[in-house]
């Protein structure tokens, strides 16, 4: 398969889907089309073993107890994986969804922390997702901690960061050391590029593997059922993210 046989979004969806293996219930928050696509692909590949709730969706959201139910559900241990992003993410996996510069009069103000300060502690497998990989987004230290990556030993914490995926690469988070480790670099990119574009230090093995491309079965699902499902919540994304070409 040539690199042009799949789109950047399709590569990311396939990579995120691999991180969700074995999950019984994956929840996807607001403004997350690629994680949403990955969760729906994971469900399709699981043969029905995985449940998915997509916030903002009517068809892919089975909650009936209002906005609080996702948080209660997570507190009960019934959400295995969730996605968080950040305007800034730092080397200790702290995320900032609030803004840059001094608080409260932020230079650039973002939306806000949403459920991050809570779900980061309650959901076992939190996958950080940020397409833009630059020294602007991946910083040494965030300007505002919406949710901390690690906690003191006496703080009750079931969950936390598992991985960080960007347009360039996939990092795993080492909870004991409190830092990221480079797992794989996406096809067409290099370790040097990752080093150059990352504002925090991270561990890496001597030989960094390439992120595996999506296989033909995953591509066929993405371009068929998944594209139609994701269009309900993200019509703009569904119209542009999937390659129209042959799948082989």
């Amino acid at each position, binding site marked *: 398969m040539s690199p042009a046989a799949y789109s950047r979004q399709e590569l990311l969806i396939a990579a995120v889907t691999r991180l969700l293996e074995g999950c019984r219930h994956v929840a996807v928050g607001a*403004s997350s089309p690629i994680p949403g696509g990955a969760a729906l692909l994971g469900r399709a590949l699981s043969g029905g073993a995985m449940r998915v709730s997509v*916030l903002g969706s009517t068809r892919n959201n089975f909650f009936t107890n*209002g*906005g609080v139910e996702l948080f209660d559900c997570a507190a009960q241990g019934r959400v295995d994986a969730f996605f968080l992003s950040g305007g800034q993410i730092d080397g200790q996996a702290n995320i900032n969804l609030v803004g840059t510069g001094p608080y409260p009069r932020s230079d650039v103000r973002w*939306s*806000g*922390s949403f459920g991050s300060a*809570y779900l980061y502690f309650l959901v076992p497998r939190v996958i950080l997702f940020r397409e833009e990989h630059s020294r602007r987004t991946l910083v040494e230290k965030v300007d505002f901690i919406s949710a*901390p990556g690690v906690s003191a030993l*006496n703080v009750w914490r079931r969950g936390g960061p598992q991985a960080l995926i960007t347009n360039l690469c996939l990092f795993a988070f080492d909870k004991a050391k409190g830092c990221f480790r480079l797992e794989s670099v996406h096809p067409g990119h290099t370790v040097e590029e990752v080093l150059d574009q990352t504002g925090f230090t991270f561990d890496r093995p001597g030989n960094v593997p390439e992120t595996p491309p999506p296989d033909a079965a995953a591509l066929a699902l993405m371009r068929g059922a998944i594209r139609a499902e994701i269009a309900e919540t993200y019509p703009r994304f569904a119209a542009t993210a999937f390659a129209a070409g042959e799948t082989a």
Partner: protein
Amino acid sequence: MNDPLMPSVAALAARIPDGAKLAVPADYSGVAMAATRALVARGARDLHLVCVPVSGLQADILIGAGCVSTIETAGITLGEYGTGPRFAQAVKAGSLRLLDATCPALHAGLQAAEKGIPFMVLRGILGSDILARRPDWLVIGNPFAAEPADDPIVALPAIHPDVALFHAPLADRAGNVWIGRRRELMTMAHAATLTLVTVEQVVDKDLLADDATAAGTIPALYVSGVAEAPAGAWPLNLWDRYEADGVTLAAYVQAARSDAGFADFLARWLDGRLKGGAVAQAAE
């Protein structure tokens, strides 16, 4: 006998006083945009907006129109259209008192109010700058732990809104309001002193008579006023009953980047020159 039915949206909005602590729902839940227009038209001031748990167009317009002095929210977002331009501008100008929160904390504060207890506790939040910036949120030791100090937990004070304002599909003539699965609207009504609701339609049947609607209905006991407002969430969606008006939302985000653009949008929205898509036109 109590008659919750109000003659107009303007009469309903007139019951929200300046300085009120006003609870409003997220865009997915049912936002009373027609009533918000009336609130802006009457020149409301000094509102303390409690977003349950986030807001978008409604908060951004109220902020831009100078109606809000304090905002308590887990986020301001217009979804695929971006963040609220007037919110960001007000933050930068320092003209808004910010109470940044996280979604479950806002739900918990309202739940404390509906139970009549002073606070609720929640896991998580510890070590965040949200907590550091909220002197009204306290860290206590779990009193049931062997060593309470070894199990810190965040205590969130009850949130008592003066008014809850939202939009729903149906009410009946007694003032019972059908909210389906949007249970946060029920919590808001329980917690607020005054609950004001706009609905697509007031129906003649009794919504409590049938179990299929009763379970998703706020009893009139909690409802202070209802006004009919067809397409009352426009330009936002009402659940999956009608879609958001993407053209108007995109135009808003573009216009609201500048003071002049926002002022022009506001003027056209207030005097009715701003026309919606099929949903809004069908309602006229």
